[in-house]
């Protein structure tokens, strides 16, 4: 089994604040993983470090067999590691279709522009209805769809989604959940950050629980804990931290 993504002993943060401490995780070529844990404990920073937006102070990241630790975000994106960041505001003054077209920016993405575009519109019919609309006039849910759509337009080898259903109504949450499940089923490996562990279990093969910038627990879908146990993980302080 080849590894698609390997993060090895990552330490990273902002200025004097260290967020990630010697964090390691991996993802093989045809699996998806989920990340969960309390807010503010480093999940978003981890994704940003992987996609080159935050420089790690130590450790290394390998993607598709290549060391990308010090690569630029744009080069990492160009290599097919797509990242749909949390609460993405995107390009407010551009239209939906224009943004999607632009998102197939790199050479490898350009080739697949048409098919990916069709895929995005069939996943999110709402976006197809709003092709001309400026991004800043979209609702929160639609922006989230557009953000995932952009990541898909990059023709991803690996897709990282940071809380795709954050702050959405139950109905929209379900709609997006179905779309994300659809992407997972199509065979694109995913790294998904979510609070909803049941949702993650239905979507991914393994879960990492992240607390204080460290992996405190790794869970395989086959021996997944039940609901009560998960609640305990969150609130009971059961972890060995």
């Amino acid at each position: 089994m080849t590894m698609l993504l390997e993060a090895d002993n990552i330490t990273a943060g902002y200025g004097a604040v260290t967020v990630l401490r010697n964090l390691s995780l991996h993802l093989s070529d045809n699996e998806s993983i989920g990340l969960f844990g309390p807010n503010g404990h480093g999940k978003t920073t981890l994704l940003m470090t992987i996609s080159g937006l935050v420089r790690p102070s130590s450790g290394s990241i390998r993607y598709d067999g290549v060391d990308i630790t010090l690569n630029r975000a744009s080069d990492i994106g160009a290599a097919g590691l797509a990242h749909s960041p949390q609460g993405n505001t995107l390009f407010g003054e551009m239209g939906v279709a224009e943004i999607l077209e632009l998102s197939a920016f790199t050479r490898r993405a350009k080739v697949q522009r048409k098919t990916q575009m069709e895929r995005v519109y069939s996943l999110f019919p709402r976006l197809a209805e709003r092709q001309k609309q400026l991004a800043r006039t979209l609702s929160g849910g639609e922006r989230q769809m557009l953000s995932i759509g952009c990541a898909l337009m990059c023709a991803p080898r690996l897709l990282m989604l940071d809380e795709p259903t954050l702050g959405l109504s139950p109905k929209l949450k379900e709609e997006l959940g179905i779309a994300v499940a659809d992407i997972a089923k199509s065979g694109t490996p995913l790294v998904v950050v979510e609070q909803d562990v049941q949702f993650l279990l239905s979507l991914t093969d393994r879960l990492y629980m992240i607390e204080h910038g460290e992996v405190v627990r790794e869970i395989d879908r086959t021996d997944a804990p039940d609901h009560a146990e998960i609640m305990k993980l969150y609130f009971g302080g059961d972890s060995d931290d």
Partner: protein
Amino acid sequence: MTEAMIATILSGLVLGSLYAMMASGLSVVWTTLGVFNFAHGALMTLGAYVAWTISEYLGLGLAAGMVAGTLAAALAGIVIERLLVRPFYTNRNMLLITVMTTLAAMIIIEKGTQVIWGPRLKQLPRIADGELFIFGSAISVHEALIVLIAPVTLIALWAFTARTLTGRSLRAAGQNQTAAALIGIHVPHAYGLAYALSAGLAGFTGVLLGSIRFLTPTLGSEPLVKAMTVVILGGLGSLGATAGAAFVIGFLEAFLVLTVGLYWTPSLLFLTMIVVLIFRPNGLFGGRS
């Protein structure tokens, strides 16, 4: 229509065309980098002088001079972005600091021009000689060509930023650096390209201006002030609004010169701008800041 009115309209068209080309250059840098380039006028001057050197001093012809002037200004723009703007991207006071660094760049170019080419007046040849008569009013062929070149340039610029992938990437980098990087746009390259484009446009405008006016080291500073008035009125956000405001100012100026005379025109233009700003703090066409 009286002859004076036609002359005024023609003069307004020429002025508006020049202002539109200047202000749209300012707008490109503003919308992409969030920087107001004070050196824009000086880049015009530089373009005109380089064109003069190639065209007149070396005798290689105006076309070669035009290309050289445009390229020289674009190159200077890249240098300004690299040395005077890029180091401050992450600075909290980037807006104010880049006003000062580009002001410094303006001084360096302006005084540098004076040191290199000396204070003696120079003039570029016209693109074409002769005059046209429109409803009995004369306009030089050169000025008529400027009136044609400006919209073509502006439409080309608009088409580039709105229709091409590279042009769109500039706008994207201006609106959201992080999101742009994530889809594979090399943001520093986009910034450099936007600066080069704007500066090249400034150089080209300078060449056109240099065959209407005499070349002096301060050739670009008075037009820069006009271009500022234009961007205050039109806002800096969109090319269309900027170009619209440029023609409004151009016609207003031509009309004021006709009615109140050359001396009071600047004051009345300024007054107009202040009145507009009192009612619309984001400019005449500016929706948001």
